[in-house]
């Protein structure tokens, strides 16, 4: 019977099917146990995080911006230990104020410093020159960057915490609670933020009296009011985003499964919903930092930022305006640093989104 079948069907010359009649029984050897085992090996277990990091490090723009950010962070951490000047220190030689060290160009020394060096002393170079009050400009830019980063991170964290709590409660409870909470968000959205910052800093100037010497006192009430305004106003975007995420995630069956197990709402939000919108949260926080830095720089530039003598990148740029034609480098340095930080954080945020957003998975 088998023979007949093989003969009656003529194999098409184009067919790729194997002609089994050409093989004898001996051609087929059963696979050994070891060979069989090779078939059921599962791939290396990859977590979502590992997978995302792998994609992130394949993105050249993101890697570049990580390098830039790490470099800036290293400089602002270690430069104050290496450079022997302080940000509020007026330069002096041999304990005498050096009045000639005003508005020096980068890598130049004043006359008295040159004398001092000629006598055999060593003087750390003024990498970015000095400002009109005879202060080393490099260390001021470094401190300004510190302040800007500090404000960027903390403002984003405030926004994140408030927005996450508000958004997750609103999204999870839904219904009427959601309706009321989102109308409040709409109202806050419609407040002009610049006006609020200016008003709050005026009011807080009267109310808040910080003990001198503390970090808050050094920053000044303007910065504290900036934080408060971020806390009061800027979380709404984050809250909306997280609410939207939660609305879509809570429809998933695994949330229902957790309910049927008997998990309480707090546990469901913490264990199931938030981990699943974590990628979106991280991305939007990363994008929030440059916008906070930008706001701070802007406010310092218009004169309601950090309190002198504490520098910030914005106030340094503002101070540089006066002698712009004679000393353009004083504007260029802080401006370049702002650009670098904002650009690289934005690019990193985009890279994170490409790597972690499940909707963009290729």
């Amino acid at each position, binding site marked *: 019977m088998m023979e007949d079948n093989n003969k009656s069907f003529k194999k098409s010359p184009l067919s790729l099917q194997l002609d089994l009649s050409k093989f004898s029984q001996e051609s087929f050897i059963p696979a050994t146990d070891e060979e069989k085992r090779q078939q059921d090996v599962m791939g290396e277990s990859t977590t979502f995080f590992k997978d995302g990091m792998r994609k992130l490090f394949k993105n050249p723009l993101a890697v570049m911006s990580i390098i830039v950010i790490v470099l800036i962070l290293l400089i602002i951490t270690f430069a104050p230990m290496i450079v022997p000047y302080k940000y509020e220190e007026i330069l002096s030689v041999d304990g005498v104020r050096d009045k000639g060290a005003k508005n020096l160009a980068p890598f130049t020394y004043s006359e008295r410093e040159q004398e001092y060096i000629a006598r055999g002393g060593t003087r750390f170079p003024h990498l970015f020159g000095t400002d009109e009050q005879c202060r080393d400009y490099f260390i001021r830019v470094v401190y300004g960057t510190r302040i800007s980063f500090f404000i960027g991170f903390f403002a984003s964290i405030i926004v994140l915490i408030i927005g996450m709590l508000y958004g997750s409660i609103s999204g999870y409870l839904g219904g009427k609670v959601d309706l009321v909470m989102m109308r409040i968000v709409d109202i806050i959205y419609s407040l002009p933020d610049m006006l609020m910052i200016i008003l709050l800093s005026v009011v807080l100037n009267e109310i808040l009296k910080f003990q001198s010497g503390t970090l808050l006192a050094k920053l000044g009430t303007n910065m504290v009011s900036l934080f408060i305004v971020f806390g009061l106003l800027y979380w709404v975007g984050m809250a909306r985003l997280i609410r939207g995420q939660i609305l879509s995630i809570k429809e998933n*069956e*695994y949330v229902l499964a*957790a309910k*049927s*197990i*008997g*998990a*309480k709402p707090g546990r469901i939000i913490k264990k199931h919903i938030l981990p699943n919108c974590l990628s979106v949260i991280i991305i939007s926080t990363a994008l929030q930092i440059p916008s906070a830095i930008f706001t701070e720089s802007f406010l310092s530039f218009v004169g309601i930022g950090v309190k002198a003598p504490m520098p910030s990148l914005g106030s340094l740029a503002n101070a540089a305006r006066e002698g712009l034609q004679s000393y353009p480098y004083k504007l260029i340095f802080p401006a370049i640093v702002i650009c670098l930080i904002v650009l690289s954080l934005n690019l990193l945020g985009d890279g994170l989104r490409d790597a972690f957003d499940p909707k963009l998975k290729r």
Partner: protein
Amino acid sequence: MSETLVDVRNLKQYFPVKTGFMKTIPLKAVDDISFTIGKGETLGLVGESGCGKTTAGRSILRLYKPTGGEVYFNGELITDKNITHMRKKMQMVFQDPYSSLDPRMTVEDIIGEPLDVHKLCANRKERRERILELMDIVGLNAEHATRYAHEFSGGQRQRIGIARALAVKPDFIVCDEPVSALDVSIQAQVINMFEELQEKLGVAYLFIAHDLLVVHHISKRIAVMYLGKIVEIADADELNDHPIHPYTESLLSAVPIPDPDVTRARHRIILEGDVPSPLKRPSGCPFRTRCRYATEQCAEECPPLTDRGGDHLVACWVK
């Protein structure tokens, strides 16, 4: 019949549907259903898409707050109070093994979650042992514990879901179309596993499905739903051999038989039209718009479930 475990009486589940500005009408997803399930018994629940099977299962577990009716579990009324402690006794296996497992959790955490919620394990070691034991029961390797759900096939995922349901040692599991998302060879494995577990652990199932063959295989009794109502409920074999309700008849005639001669010879009852929208239910018997035998009485009054002998209940005026 064995001792009653779950007793559902006149369960109603309506959802408000907005039809215009400030106007809502109820969508009667489950409308007045009653049945009982004995200890260690399986009740199959069949019906076409959108007839309220899943809703019924979820209402019984109180994942929705029922609009009306009562559910007694072991003699205890569970419809109108906090039932967190009852969640240990009744569990659910979901239809879609892809969306019912949290993609950010390892298998160990998924199966361990009920243990954590009800604080059933004193320490990590005990928890780990219990999880491995559960994984063994459903036929998963211990080395799978640290993997994530997306690394598994559909059948394996469903096993994870079953292990999660078994973690609290429930007496009753609602299986919401647990095999319909799996392909046929895996379906058989999973169904056999359900049967083995029932023998070993004595759990009762409410087995929801739209595949009559599957339901007939696993169930002791079968209930047929149409548009939120139970139209017929009988022993599995009795229902298969002597269907009374015209809807059940047509369902059974559509079951594929793997024999071309038999299939050609038998008479296939083809229903006219579509299922009416549950928002615009026909008056009287919900099935009358598609029923061959419909009379005037069917349009006026809804037929009650009446016993036709031998625990065979049918809701039909004509037959």
